[in-house]
């Protein structure tokens, strides 16, 4: 049994605090007086001091590594380039999608069911066939216009009727020759009315494959009858309506392009939004 074990607990705490200089001056003075008189107390103090000094022998260890934090550890996300735009990608994608749907609905309502944008090629074929039927059934009543008669010599040099059956937007060289570039007025039919031309102008540039096939098949089939001179002479009458084609600028393709644009934007923004979420 050491001197420390023989001490009352209160004395033990006083000795410990005395070693650390944690007693008040009055308490320290009283303990000093006791230490001079009580040998066991002084012995206990020496033991406690040796213990304290022994613990002080433990060295300060060098940390095995640095403990600094990385942004990932701290939960800090570096702002990515273009983040201010991408943070709204979801909302923009939704708006673009809604705009595309709205334009689509508007287009359907404005054009009616028969002008639905979903099937332009069959409708074009129907329009062509309807016009051809109309020209075939009507009797030939050549309009004796002076312009037609003047253009007759030129048309005489024109290629056969099959060649004249060209797509509406034929090459400018052909059109400069004064050749009828539309099916109207062919086969002795009357010249195209303004309504017909407008109906045709609905699909002037977007000649769908089905329409091309129709035109190609029509060209491949032999001409039903030799074209009368007067029939070809009426063809130039179509030049005047043709010149008005740009005025009948189609509205549907514009809306269609807007729809495509908005739908594309919606897809791209949605993809960017998903990519951004996956990276987080």
């Amino acid at each position, binding site marked *: 049994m*050491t*001197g*420390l*074990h023989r001490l009352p*607990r209160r004395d*033990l*705490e006083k*000795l*410990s*605090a005395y070693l*650390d200089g*944690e007693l008040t001056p009055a308490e320290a003075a009283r303990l000093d007086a006791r230490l001079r008189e009580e*040998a*066991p107390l*002084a*012995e*206990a103090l*020496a*033991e*406690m001091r*040796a*213990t*304290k*000094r*022994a*613990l*002080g*022998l*433990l*060295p*300060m*260890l*060098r*940390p*095995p*590594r*640095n*403990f*600094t*934090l990385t*942004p990932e*550890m*701290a*939960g*800090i996300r570096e702002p990515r380039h273009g983040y201010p735009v991408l943070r709204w990608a979801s909302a923009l994608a939704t708006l673009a999608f809604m705009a595309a749907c709205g334009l689509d609905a508007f287009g359907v309502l404005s054009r009616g069911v028969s002008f639905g944008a979903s099937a332009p090629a069959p409708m074009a074929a129907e329009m062509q066939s309807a016009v051809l039927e109309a020209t075939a059934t009507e009797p030939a009543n050549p309009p004796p216009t002076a312009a037609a008669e003047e253009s007759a010599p030129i048309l005489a040099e024109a290629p056969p009727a099959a060649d004249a059956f060209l797509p509406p937007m034929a090459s400018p060289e052909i059109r400069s020759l004064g050749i009828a570039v539309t099916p109207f007025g062919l086969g002795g039919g009357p010249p195209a009315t303004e309504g017909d031309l407008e109906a045709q102008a609905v699909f002037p540039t977007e000649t769908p494959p089905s329409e091309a096939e129709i035109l190609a098949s029509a060209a491949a089939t032999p001409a039903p009858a030799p074209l009368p001179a007067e029939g070809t002479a009426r063809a130039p009458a179509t030049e005047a309506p043709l010149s008005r084609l740009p005025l009948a600028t189609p509205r549907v393709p514009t809306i269609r392009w807007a729809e495509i644009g908005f739908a594309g934007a919606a897809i791209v923004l949605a993809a960017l939004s998903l990519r951004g979420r996956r990276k987080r």
Partner: protein
Amino acid sequence: MDEPSLIREAQRGDLDAFNRLVLAHQSQVYNLAYRIIGETDAASDATQEAFLSAYRNLRGFRGGSFVGWLLRIVTNACYDELRRRKRRPAISLEVLTETDSGPDEEGPASLTSPQERPEAAAERLELSRAIQNCLDHLPLEFRTVAILADVQGYDYSEIAAVVGAPLGTVKSRLARARLRLRDCLQRFRELLPAAFRLEDKAPS
């Protein structure tokens, strides 16, 4: 930049400022963790966890001793680790592969200087391990107070702030810790230098 400025910057989210505080105090924090737990890897984990927790809760620091605040966090991290071990005791591979001489943390490289004789270095190493062994056998509350007072040299009020206990409790725990340590160190008295040797009889 002084410490209060670094703390303010870090509280605004400046990670660089916080990392400068880490570099300034990591040695004290790690040493406390190592002396409480007694293992290098676990002490490193507790230290890292403490700094991470400190960064996340930095806005809650209301002034006073910043290092004391850090030491309190790492002390709690060490307590959590030791409680976890108590619930699920396991022997680490590191311990199984060690020789009887103990862990490598306090090996010759970390304790000796190039000028020290090999014999003296070995004696110092033995002594350090003996003292650490005595600390490891103390109750956790006693151990922390003894380390803070006698190994790291903090005063009672700082220790009270770190352990979150009244001053009287700190005083009592430290006295009892020293009594137990004295008994433990008696078994290693031949390792202690003569000036530090504990005698059964008080010096005359």
